């Protein structure tokens, strides 16, 4: 578990850099909640008027560039995306953040053995 924790933290850093480069402002990281929904939002960010919860998935790649454990997005099931959306509502209520729209994004970070990580970003998955 240690290794995957490290990979996950690395991926979240890469994702935050990517989001900020794309003009989004990060509001919170690893926001946890137990009630009414139990879970964690990896990154909460503002994109213009919208408040965005970002689910970050990271996978290490083999030498050929293909992730051995499947593509990161395959791990974002519809149920997971829906849970993140409920968490985002809880976040907005808990923190008093106001937004014109709520959105859930997914970011995939693919880390090859050498060289820079590849980032894929999906808008509005739930």
């Amino acid at each position, binding site marked *: 578990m240690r290794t995957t924790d490290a990979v996950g933290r690395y991926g979240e850093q890469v994702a935050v850099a990517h989001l900020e480069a794309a003009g989004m402002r990060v509001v919170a990281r690893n926001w946890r909640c137990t009630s009414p929904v139990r879970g964690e939002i990896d990154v909460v960010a503002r994109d213009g008027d919208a408040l965005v919860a970002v689910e970050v998935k990271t996978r290490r790649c083999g030498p050929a560039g293909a992730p051995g454990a499947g*593509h990161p997005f395959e791990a974002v099931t*519809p149920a997971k995306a829906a849970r993140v959306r409920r968490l985002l509502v809880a976040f907005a209520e808990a923190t008093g953040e106001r937004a014109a729209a709520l959105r859930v994004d997914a970011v995939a970070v693919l880390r090859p053995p050498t060289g820079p990580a590849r980032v894929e970003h*999906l808008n509005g998955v739930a």
Partner: protein
Amino acid sequence: MGLGATRGVALVGMTGAPVDVEAFVTPGLPAFVVTGLPDTSLGQSRDRVRAALAGIGCSLPSKRVTVNLSPASLPKQGAGFDLAVAVAVLAAEGVLAREVVRGWTHLGELGLDGRLRPVRGVLPAVVAAVRAGSPRVVVPHENAAEAELVPGAEVRSASCLAAVVRGHGGEVDPACDPEEDVRTRAPAPVEPPPRLDLADVVGQVEARRAVEVAAAGGHHLLLLGPPGAGKTMLAARLPGLLPDLGDEEAVEVTAVHSVAGTFDAAGGLLRRPPFEDPHHTATTPSVVGGGSGVVRPGAASRAHRGVLFLDEAPEFRKDVLEALRQPLEHGSLVIARAGGAARYPARFQLVMAANPCPCGRASGRGEACSCAPLERRRYLSRLSGPLLDRVDLQVEVTAPSRAALAVGAEGETTAVVAARVRAARAAQQERLAGEGARCNGEAPGSLLRGRLRLPPVVVGDLDAALDRGRLTVRGYDRVLRTAWTLADLDGADAPDRDHVGAALLLRLRGRAA
């Protein structure tokens, strides 16, 4: 946007409907959705397609893949769409050229390793594709011979998905081809059924004659007699007397057997009239066709243009026998299910064999019979009046005597009798050309009482039987048909009084009015 499209065929009964298979690849969470009323086995095609695509090194994109089968309102069944789905996805991804793939129809089930498996009903499916104006089809290797039977079809066959992709100009690493499978490559040689010769039947001059008449005119036949008299033997020798099927008939028959999955394409079109002999415990769906969701043809349809033989006919369930009345009248079966109605052709020649009573010994004077009179009456009444009324020839078969056994098989061989049958059929076809009938058994009553009306002198006995209520009007027509067949067998231009008398005897089990 990645959009790819190709074609498949949905079968409803014997008719195929072309189906556009479209694949749409969009960014989004990875998902594979099949829309357009797929049944369970078709819905599961996404898992087979996913594995097969991975097998040839073209894994599904980590995107949202939507496959639509259009027209979306038509229910679709079976795994035969696997190949079309896979090819449409490959076209959507740009692995295959879209305009190349669009012009082809794809049929076939995929194995997880990318192997193509044969499917049922390829013949009617290819016919539908050609009729819809897209004669270019890709079929599994095992179905190639069957698909090539369709005139005008441009058939390409493949043993695996990789071969299909190469055929369309795509590139696949040869290392991805599935290993040769010994199971599918070496089909067991089909033993030809033993030749049954009419000469094997001992004695039975009258019954033998009845079988010949049945073959010559396409008449329905009932053989009544004690156990061991040779009823089954006689009936099994009837198909051997029938002439080969014509081109049009052969395609119809082959299509039915293709849908039923009882057709081996290696021998080409089915040219011999089929013979079906369901056991008397058969259920109605097994005889007339049925099944949940997809309706499959039953024994009556598989016997189309051939012989349906019901041995121990009174032992069949009542509803099975009654269900045969529709095909006997119309030559086709319409089976309605929630998923839609399917029409199968079922113009068969009905041959029934029956014991005269439960103990079987009531024939002749019936002295050895141990059944109560009521039992005896009830037994044959299970063959209902409406059903028996449609049977032209009803013959009693008696057990051959010791004298007949001693003389040995001196009867004519199948070849000799078949030659007479052929000549009689040729005469009928000449006379019935343009009337929508192929033999006397199918001749319309209006024709018999119109253009082919016989003089009153000839039909005098018949009129008397009708007046006395021994014949129904339908029975009257049926006797006329048999009389024409008897005349054709004798090489006469029209039946004379003897022919009509003999036909009446054949109809009334020898108890003429």
